[in-house]
């Protein structure tokens, strides 16, 4: 029975950190699920190391998971954490700078032995949890490893196996502190380890031990309660970006009534889309793990010719390998969805960190004049809608389309008021038939008023035709080296993509005045941060407008007009300035870049400060 008083909080940011072998991501996602079920709004940010198992105990091996939840709207995973849970000395060292002054540290005492301190490169004889270096924080030292072993000593498990449950001990402890139910995790463990009941049991036991430990002791600061957030009415679930992407693809395939052909080559942070899709073969999904990215996109192009909803995915380095094939799809004019789950580059860069630096690659990165539409997701749940839209455009306009997400969205989670399948837009696919022949001849590059040609599938009698990468004659599609024809075709392909602006929504403001001093334009995963920053500014008396772009090529038709209503435009991007160039190029807009290129999302405070600075206040 708890004696402590419960304190109410509107917002809490918890950061879990430990060795990549400590099960940090699992702990984080479990806490997320329980928190979501408790009705809080939330956002998460996993922060993994590039190496799967860097030497245990070192800074390079630290894996983090940040969860921001609240009884109010939550738009970001939080700039700084209120609570930092560290499994060892390296985790503390790597993450202390993310903790608010006065914040809570829960430290696994056993992770601060001599060996761990040495590996974390603390000076000889120094131990942060023993000396006064953490004076500014509330530190709780818990011998997690010891207590976990203690509670599992009768299970017959070996020490290594017992130690695998120490993350569950910590989870139990936090469940107590934040008054969360353990049930979802118990269910999860029982189903995950259905074939190894002894493992499930040990984990549940460790979690319950952590829960009771917090109850009966020692954690002196009491319990917190974060009430359910006042969210829009409806039914919610928690969803991660890559999962939403996979669902969005399946949804589009259902709406278009076409099978999905998804071909890829494993790469962080895109692989989880493959993992998710390959579990849903009962939707008629074909997943292919090709020998390389080129083969992946190539086979998708083959499947598209055959009439499938063809999709390929990668991160920047793999996308660049697909470039030539994507240009082929452009000149073929066949549907293809290219998912670029961006990460920090160039080259291998920071493979597990986020960045928005592939925008130019998506828009321009092909040989020759090869325009194609580009659509970007703004939040983990929005990946569903954005990739659905990418599929719709690809199928209805016979074109390859880029869908842009990034590592922050891919692995981040948030509550999702999911749609019913009947709310989804229709996707109209019309295959060519014999009736499309004129005087007995089929013209594969004849177009409708939108300049879109028809999709003629092999197997259709009478429509036998050849498509190729060589320039084709207008209408007939025959190979043509005629100079005037080439110019005509380049212009037609451009116009076709430009025309898509007539079939996408106009740009709306996310918030703020319709005219004024400053408009902040963002795209992709900066959405939540910009929104939160502007909301705080508004509370502080400064009303700045925000527009967030989903359609990056073509831009919504009214964007140029919208921009003219403001004296200045600020464009925050996690890159060295890409959208800002497009806006200046297309609209001669007075756009000011604001860039962060650290492999991390913007902090709300950073955006606010930049705006204060710009407004000279």
């Amino acid at each position, binding site marked *: 029975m708890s004696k402590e008083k419960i304190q109410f909080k509107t917002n809490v940011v918890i950061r879990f950190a430990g060795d990549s072998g400590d099960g940090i991501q699992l702990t984080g996602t479990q806490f997320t699920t329980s928190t*979501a*079920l*408790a009705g809080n709004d939330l956002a998460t940010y996993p922060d993994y190391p590039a190496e799967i198992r860097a030497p245990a105990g070192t800074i390079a091996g630290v894996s983090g998971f940040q969860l921001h939840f609240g009884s109010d709207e939550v738009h970001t995973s939080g700039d700084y954490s209120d609570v930092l849970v560290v499994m060892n000395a390296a985790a503390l060292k790597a993450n202390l700078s993310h903790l608010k002054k006065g914040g809570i540290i829960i430290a696994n005492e056993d992770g601060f032995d001599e060996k761990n301190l040495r590996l974390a490169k603390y000076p000889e004889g120094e131990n942060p949890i023993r000396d006064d270096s953490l004076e500014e924080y509330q530190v709780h030292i818990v011998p997690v490893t010891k207590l976990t072993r203690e509670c599992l000593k009768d299970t017959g498990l070996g020490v290594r196996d017992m130690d695998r449950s120490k993350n569950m001990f910590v989870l139990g402890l936090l469940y107590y502190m934040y008054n969360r139910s353990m049930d979802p995790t118990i269910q999860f463990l029982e189903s995950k380890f259905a074939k190894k009941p002894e493992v499930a049991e040990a984990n549940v036991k460790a979690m319950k031990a952590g829960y009771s430990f917090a109850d009966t002791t020692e954690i002196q600061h009491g319990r917190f309660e974060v009430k*359910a957030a006042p969210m*829009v*009415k*409806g*039914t*919610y*679930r*928690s*969803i991660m970006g890559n999962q939403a992407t996979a*669902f969005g693809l*399946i*949804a589009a395939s*259902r709406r278009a009534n076409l*099978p999905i*052909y998804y*071909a890829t080559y494993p790469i962080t942070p895109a692989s989880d889309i493959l993992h998710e899709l390959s579990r*849903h*073969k*009962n*939707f*008629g999904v*074909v997943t*292919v793990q*090709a*020998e390389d990215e*080129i*083969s992946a996109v*190539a*086979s*998708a*192009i*083959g*499947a*598209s*010719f*055959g*009439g499938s909803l*063809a999709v390929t995915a990668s991160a920047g380095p793999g996308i660049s390998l697909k470039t*030539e094939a994507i240009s*082929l799809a452009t000149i073929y004019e066949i549907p293809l969805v290219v998912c670029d789950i961006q990460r920090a580059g160039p080259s291998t860069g920071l493979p597990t960190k986020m960045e928005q630096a592939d925008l130019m690659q998506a828009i321009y990165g092909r040989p020759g004049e090869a325009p194609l539409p580009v659509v970007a997701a703004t939040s983990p749940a929005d990946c569903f809608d954005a990739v659905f839209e990418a599929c719709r455009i690809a199928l209805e306009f016979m074109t390859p389309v880029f869908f842009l997400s990034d590592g922050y969205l891919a692995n981040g989670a948030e509550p999702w008021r*999911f749609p*019913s*399948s009947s709310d989804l837009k229709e996707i109209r696919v019309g295959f060519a038939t014999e009736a499309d022949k004129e005087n007995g001849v089929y013209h594969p590059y004849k177009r409708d008023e939108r300049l879109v040609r028809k999709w003629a599938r*092999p*197997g*259709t*009698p*009478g*429509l*036998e*035709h*050849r*498509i*190729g*990468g060589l320039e084709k004659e207008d209408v007939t599609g*025959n*190979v043509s080296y005629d100079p005037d024809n080439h110019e005509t075709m380049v212009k037609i392909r451009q116009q076709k993509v430009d025309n898509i602006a007539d079939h996408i929504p106009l740009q709306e403001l996310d918030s703020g005045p319709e005219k004024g001093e400053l408009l902040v334009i963002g795209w992709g995963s900066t959405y939540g941060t910009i929104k939160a920053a502007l909301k705080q500014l508004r509370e502080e008396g400064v009303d700045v407008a925000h527009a967030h772009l989903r359609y990056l090529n073509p831009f919504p038709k009214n964007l140029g007009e919208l921009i003219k209503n403001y004296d200045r435009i600020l464009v925050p991007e996690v890159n060295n300035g890409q959208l800002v160039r497009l806006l200046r190029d297309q609209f001669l807009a007075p756009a000011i870049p604001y860039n962060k290129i650290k492999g991390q999302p913007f902090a709300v405070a950073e955006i606010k400060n930049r705006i204060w600075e710009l407004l000279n206040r």
Partner: protein
Amino acid sequence: MASTQTTEKTSNFTSKDLVSDQDIRWCPGCGDYSILKQVQKVLPELGLKKENIVFVSGIGCSSRFPYYMNTYGMHTIHGRAASIATGLKVSRPELSVWVVTGDGDSLSIGGNHFIHTLRKNPNLNILLFNNEIYGLTKGQFSPTSPEGKVTKSSPMGSVEHPFNPLALALGADATFVARSMDRDPKHLQAMIRRSAEHKGTSLLEIYQNCNVFNDGAFFEFTDRATKTDRALFLEHGKPLTFGAENRKGIRLRDGCQPEIVDLEKGGLSESDLWIHDEKDSLKAGLLARLPENAGNGQGEFPSAFGVFYAIERYCLEEAVNAQIKKARERMGDGELDALIRGDHVWEIK
């Protein structure tokens, strides 16, 4: 093997229907013409529907092929035809998918897809036009050009050791490996037929004369004076014989060491010879490397033509679609709303 029996089948088209309205742009005298003609000759005999045939090519002179076939066709990008064809076949198993490719296309830039396609074994027919040169780019050495080959990019002779395409294919676990040549139409037709009938990826290497940049590379196999000594035609279950009136044979000493023997001398008969077995992978490997053996005083070893190897193994598209079927049996046809909803939801009222 049922699939090897050639039965007369009816198609809905003739050879003439396969001729497209496009002007052919190969150099006059190019071996590609003959290959096109033999393909157009054989296809109507296979019992296919014209609308179900797709030719997929990469880039090169040879890869212009689909433009000249009045079927569905894709001229794609350099080296990737096998992958594109795989995607098409996996998504549309009922189609008859043909890959037309060159030695540069498949063995240089597309080498990776070539070996991986063979191991995955989709039911494709690969026609590899080997002219031992880069034709389209005007005459550089290719990965099959012999050592020392003098070309525009190797004026002092190529310093590279070439690939042996059939040995490479066997090493990649191909299920069907055969060789023919442009200048032997009858044999080429027979090999095209066999390739089409094979279930799985069939690799047919076709020696093709590039009369502009590598003229005569394979004439020794067709010239009257040399052909009987240089070319050995394989037949399943038959002994390996060649030379004038088939008086020379090949025997396997110690079961694995090829040896040329003279059937006139030494009292040897055909039953002492190496009997060709299309299902023997070890012997297929020996056959692929036959001309590399040092002669044993009986002249040079010939090159083999015909089906080196043909076995059955499941096809990629069958396995892929079987899994989809199984998943549907186990879980029922996917329900979108249930998928989106997942297991844990909560209400905000």
